[in-house]
């Protein structure tokens, strides 16, 4: 069986020792510094003792020097909630360097990073019927589950991104990462709806668009009967250099549209080529968008 996650992948993954940037103030205790002061071992500040403070936190050495009661404040470490949504429509199963494979690799990588950081990761598989969630747990052993889950994924059918995302419930603040090619007709409204909803649900929105080289720079010419592999629709197009130029500019417009909408709501938009190296994507693209640190 041709495994999607090979030895090489894990080797690269091991080299990545970074964290996802997510500022939290709520949530259960975890490995992530939150804005709140809490009970971790990491010192944060002093303040005068007030009635009701935990005696155990009084700094007796300070009391000896100043004869005043000071309480030591520590960073509260809370867990991050990461929702990684993978578009599993048929259109993702395309390209010499398969877009779906890249989506899975990115999802796996981000899961690994998050789990390593004691964050909670849930994987949402966006399918024709709705979102299929797996691994709501945390801890390193859950990574195995994630990998197994991702391995078994199949890209098929049509997916309505908006309706499937909107069906998801978010209880905590977190980061929602949507990995898709975002090839949606009349996409602007739909995308904005998705971003709006996620933002409303206190999600930091990250859109990762994966396109393959065949989509970005198609090298086709002449009259073709183009078939949409997802919808099976057909169109006869005489492809000329002029049309190719129009196509490329349209791709660029589409990217800009996605980027603008996501940015408008404080999110991040990352475009990824399916033939790119996962290491480069994680260490360069995500870093540049300050998703990692």
């Amino acid at each position: 069986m041709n495994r999607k996650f090979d030895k090489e992948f894990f080797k690269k993954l091991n080299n990545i020792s970074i964290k996802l940037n997510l500022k939290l103030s709520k949530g259960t205790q975890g490995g992530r510094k939150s804005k709140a002061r809490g009970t971790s071992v990491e010192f944060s500040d002093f303040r005068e003792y007030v009635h009701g403070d935990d005696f155990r936190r009084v700094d007796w050495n300070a009391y000896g020097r100043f004869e005043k009661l000071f309480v030591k404040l520590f960073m509260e470490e809370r867990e991050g909630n990461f929702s990684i949504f993978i578009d599993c429509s048929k259109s993702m199963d395309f390209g010499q360097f398969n877009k779906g494979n890249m989506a899975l690799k990115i999802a796996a990588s981000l899961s690994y990073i998050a789990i390593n950081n004691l964050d909670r990761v849930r994987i949402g598989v966006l399918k024709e019927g709705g979102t299929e969630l797996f691994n709501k747990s945390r801890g390193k052993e859950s990574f195995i589950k994630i990998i197994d889950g991702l391995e078994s994924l199949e890209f098929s059918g049509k997916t309505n991104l908006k309706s499937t995302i909107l069906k998801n419930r978010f209880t905590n603040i977190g980061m929602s990462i949507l990995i898709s090619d975002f090839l949606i007709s009349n996409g602007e409204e739909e995308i904005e709806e998705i971003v709006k909803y996620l933002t409303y649900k206190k999600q930091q929105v990250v859109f990762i668009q994966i396109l393959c080289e065949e989509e970005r720079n198609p090298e086709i010419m002449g009259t073709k009967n183009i078939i949409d592999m997802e919808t099976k629709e057909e169109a006869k197009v005489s492809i000329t250099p002029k049309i190719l130029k129009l196509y490329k500019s349209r791709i660029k417009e589409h990217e800009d549209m996605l980027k603008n909408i996501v940015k408008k709501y404080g999110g991040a938009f990352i475009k990824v080529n399916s033939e790119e190296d996962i290491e480069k994507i994680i260490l360069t693209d995500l870093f540049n968008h300050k998703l990692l640190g």
Partner: protein
Amino acid sequence: MSFLNIWPLFFLVTIPFLILLYILKEKSEDLSVSSLIFWQEIYKTLEVNSPFEKLKKNIMLFLQILIALLIILALMNPFIRFFGKEYTDLIIVIDNSASMLGINKEENCIDRGKAIAKEYIESAANSTKISVITANKDVEVLVTASKNKDLVKDKIDSITKSLSPGDLNGSIKLVESMTKELKNYEVLFITDEELDIGDINGRIVYLDKNKSNISIDNIAHKIEDGKVSIISTITNRGNDDYSGDFYLYGEKELLEATSIKLKKGEEITLNFNIKDTDIDYLKGEISGKDAILEDNTFYHVMKNNDDKKVLFVSNKNVFLEKALSVVSKADVIKTNDISNISEKDRYNLYIFDGMLGEYMPQDGNILIVNPTENNLFGVLGEQAGGEAVVVSEDIPKYLQNMTFIASKIKKTEMPSWAKSLINIGDKSVLFLGKHNNQKIAVVNFDFHDTDLPLKAEFPMLIDYICEELIDRNIVNSNYIGGEDIKINGSSVYDELILTTPSGRVHTIENDSILKENLELGVYAIEDNNHSFNEMFSINFPSIEEGNIMEDTIEDLEARSNNKGSIKGMLNITPYIISLIMLFIIVEWVLYKKGY
């Protein structure tokens, strides 16, 4: 714009095929993509922009159709008339005299003239009626008022090189009479000699030749005391001085060679003496190349002097005997007994004087004097004579006024095949005709009964009669181009075999005149049994045709009424071909760009 060819329009049928091929090629292959959304959007945009975008989509097809149309157009040889009006009648007069064999660089004048004529015909409107005339010694109308350009061009192609002297002046009268009734005509004269066309609405195309020309005008010989004296005349007819060599060959063997120098217009006579008299022909040759190569060689046939055999059967007719002795080149054998004639013996002429036997020769010609009963014509006895006068114009002028008195004559019935030459009253006393391929002359009196032998004209009359009856050589020995070459074959020969200088062998009929496809050089004639062999030479008429014009062509054209180009058209085919090349390049570029 006019077209020279219409037939390429046939290729228009290829255009639908081209479109069909394009449609077939349009059968697109399937291509799976992740999403159609962008393609559909673009397609919609393009449809909004149609029909221009549709045109762009099919730009290769349009280019290919355009190229195909342009190729068809180029094949149609389109041209634009620049000046001159279209004439309803066009007469082309081509000088076909021997001088047109002259060359300029590599091409001779006649070929250039033909090419110019064809080009001019092509430029004429399709409705123009074209006539073509060639002129040398004779003026010949090849085509009269034809609108069929192909036919006219074929006729022009059929014009062969002529060795005949002459010029276009002889054609002017014909052209004048042809154009008398025409209002809208043009005459194109193509010549290499100066020409005055008077009031004829015409253009003269002068064909230039190389400026130097040297010619051998004559070679002659005389045999005396077993030696041959040869003279040759050579003239410099060009505009340059000449210095070179003259070679004299006996058949193919070089006999003499000498250097000669001739200034412009100078003539030289060379004398040679050779011992060998057994040479069929002499050949003179001048070294170097000039305008007319044909007159650099001269052939002179030395032989063909065989005497003709005449059998004279008479009972001592001294008058006739004496008269026959002066008949040139006749070997007269006399006998007084008709029974001496053997059927095996053959003579060119049989003369029966007062005696006719049962035997009548079946070959050779016959002169019967004072006839007796025979099976050729009836002899009805004798009758009284009178004054004899010449009644036929065939008799030479110097004999026309001859009269003589005959005391008695034979009463004969003149056969239908004969024609009377001399009459006494209405009775013919000398008639001549051809019967069963034999020429037969009959003198209806005895010379002793007349005063004719006393007349000065008597030997001349006998010589004339013999001249008519003796088949002399089949041809003369030496001819100049343009002279009639009459084949005077004896009645014995129906067909003769002629071998041309280039080695072509064909049969010719007796009594014919050689006219067409003549070559310069030595011809041989023989009969089927090879019983005789005669030669004759044809040489270039250098005296009439060898001179090179002193005036330059520019001078002549300036003096003539045509100062412009004769081609009143601009051939736009090269421009169309350039355009085709350009479109092919554009198509290549577009193809490379992926259209």
